């Protein structure tokens, strides 16, 4: 079982979920703490390159709001990775719904 998220990580995850809540192509967030990093994976439906880059820019905006946490934000786009994007989320990551 993954370790309980620290308050900082919980705040980061909540902020990301809030930011992507209205984006229908976003399926969910997985996260874990790893050393100095808070790692996040956003799993999406198949989206084109501009759409993926838009979400990536939004993620960087959210990350920038947390000066005391280094956020390592990733996107698993079903267009590139196929039918099972969740299968590429590293072991130990916790799921967080976004809506």
């Amino acid at each position, binding site marked *: 079982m993954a370790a309980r998220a620290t308050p900082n990580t919980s705040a980061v995850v909540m902020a990301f979920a809030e930011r992507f809540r209205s984006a229908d192509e976003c399926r969910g967030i997985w996260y874990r703490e*790893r*050393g*100095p*990093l808070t*790692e996040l994976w956003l799993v999406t439906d198949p989206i084109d*390159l501009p759409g*993926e*880059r838009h979400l*990536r*820019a939004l993620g*960087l905006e959210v990350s920038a709001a947390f000066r005391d946490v*280094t*956020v*390592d*934000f*990733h*996107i*698993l*786009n079903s*267009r*590139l*990775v*196929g039918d*099972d994007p969740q299968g*590429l989320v590293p072991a130990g990551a916790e799921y967080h719904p976004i809506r």
Partner: protein
Amino acid sequence: MDGRTQLHLDAAERHKNLAPWLLHSPRPPDLTSYPDEWVVTILFYSAVHLISAYLMERAGPGSIPRSHAERFAEVGRRPELRSIVMPYTELYDWSIAARYAARPTFAATDLQAASDDRDRIARVISQLLGVE
């Protein structure tokens, strides 16, 4: 410049030059499609060497990350590398898809975007190292 910095820059260039070779060389008869996923992966590792070159030159061999997580942390904490976070993360994510997805699918526009990402990182690192 430290000789080890140059070795990383050389490796980055070698990887970059291998990518178009993979895409445009005649295919062996038993290879039914071009190895797009390895093009993406090679471009990502070119970027890794560029970052290693910069860290070697600025902070010495002890600063070279030993894992992707350490490299993300190092890039994330250095303001002068802020502009490469997006292209580097994009290359990393696509290389994960390339290496671990059962059937990764990259369009020609994705391969061009990956090459552009790598070149953007190269420009920033070259400017920082003063080797333009």
